[in-house]
């Protein structure tokens, strides 16, 4: 499973996954926080306050890009 697949699986548990990975995930702020928390758990990373920009957690693609960036750092 690549990073995008994993992110999609995480989002699917908490929200309706858009057909297109680039499309914004339409959720309440609480669910967005839960998605962040689930991403942290799944990829064993910490999302800092600086990382928490709205764009980063907007779509499956942007979350996956963020995770890969973090893992490469």
């Amino acid at each position, binding site marked *: 499973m690549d990073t995008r697949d994993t*992110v999609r699986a995480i989002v699917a548990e908490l929200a309706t996954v858009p057909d297109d990975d680039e499309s914004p995930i339409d959720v309440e702020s609480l*669910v967005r926080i839960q998605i962040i*928390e*689930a991403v942290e*758990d799944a*990829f064993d990373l910490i999302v800092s306050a600086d990382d928490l920009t709205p764009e980063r957690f907007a779509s499956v693609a942007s979350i996956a890009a963020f995770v890969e960036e973090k893992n490469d750092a």
Partner: protein
Amino acid sequence: MSARALESWLGGCGSAVAIEQSDRSSTYEELRARADSIAGSLPDVRGRLVAVHAGDTATFVAAVLATLNRGGAALPLEASKTLPDRARPVAVVDGSEIHEQPDPRALPEGTGLVLATSGTTAGPRLVALSAEGVSANVDAILRYLPVADAPRTGLVVSPTYSYGLVGQILTTLRVGGTVVSVGSDAATLATRGVLGLSSVPASLRAIAEQPSELRLRYVASAGAPLDRATIDAVRSRFGDARFFNQYGLTEASPRVSRLERSDAPEAFDAGSVGRAIDGVRLTVRDDRGATLAPSVEGSIVVQSPSAMLAYLDEPEATAAALSPHGLVTGDRGVLDGDGRLHVRGRGDDVVQVAGVRVSLREVGAFLERDPAVTEAHVVALPARRTGSTLVAVVACDEGAVASLRERARSELPAAARPSRFVTVAALPRTERGKVDRAALRSLAEGSPIAGRGNNG
């Protein structure tokens, strides 16, 4: 010290059968003789505890009555269970053997029964109940439960619980009826001509769903929330029987309230446990102890002559439970416009998800309304950012989860949606038929997090 004569507990006489077991029966005369014999062999038990093992039902009951008769307090113990450390009885009665013990503990004045409740974390609590309070509860139960009209009671819950010992054995014996202790198989209960049945919902449902010739005059539920599936199963199988839902707790000896279905079918089907029994006053209060208006949820507080004397050796827990307003049950609930109680769950039922108060029980009830789900229970696990995350343990097919998740998403507020679902064949339950919260928690904790372990 309130020693009570055997006659105050035993309403039957002579050759009438008091306790019927698979292999033999004990008449009232035999039960009295056995209690007298045990009483004569006990050391001085006044103000002391006597641990009584529940192997043979008739011997167990005789030993409990002998202890009460001598002014002592009985601690019923499952045959297999070891003595709790803080019990320190003056004697242990195991079948026909009586073992005297060194260094017996003191008890609060008037203690007649000490019952162990399943502690949440730190081992069993020992609840000290007065003999007078227990006796008052027996009388109050007999004022609504038609034991006298259906004087053959099937004993299907353990005689060591307040429900079995006070709610069934002592009530049946006081009206001179017969306690039928032959297990919980419906066909056997039918063969033995059982007329009245009290149990926890899971067991009532199981008995109702077994084919049998059982003809009951009353069915009474307590010990757990009475769910719709059990109500339907009992009504379709025992349509002629009077049907009661009841609320109580060991700390109240145990009965607090009851509702008969025919008095208010809609409230009953909505799970109400009705109004306080005679002598008991029920209030719903806020955290500061002020009474709340109807329909406002709060803490259930009970004023009752049968309220416990103390948790042994736990002064802080005792002081917290025995408030100036009465016994704080630890349960939350509301009184409806007709003064009927609806229990909403344990005090720890309500959790906060990102600052929003969520009742785990209500989320569970929501999931149970889905036809694919037989049972559901929701567990809150700690979460770093939101405080709590909800995990639903659901008895349903794996394949039903997707649509359940969709329904939760469209119908529940975000805070109340389970973030994970664990499917099981049936919810884990304790011997008492209550949902096993510890087992549920480990199921929830062990549930896979999406993506975990797949990111190499």
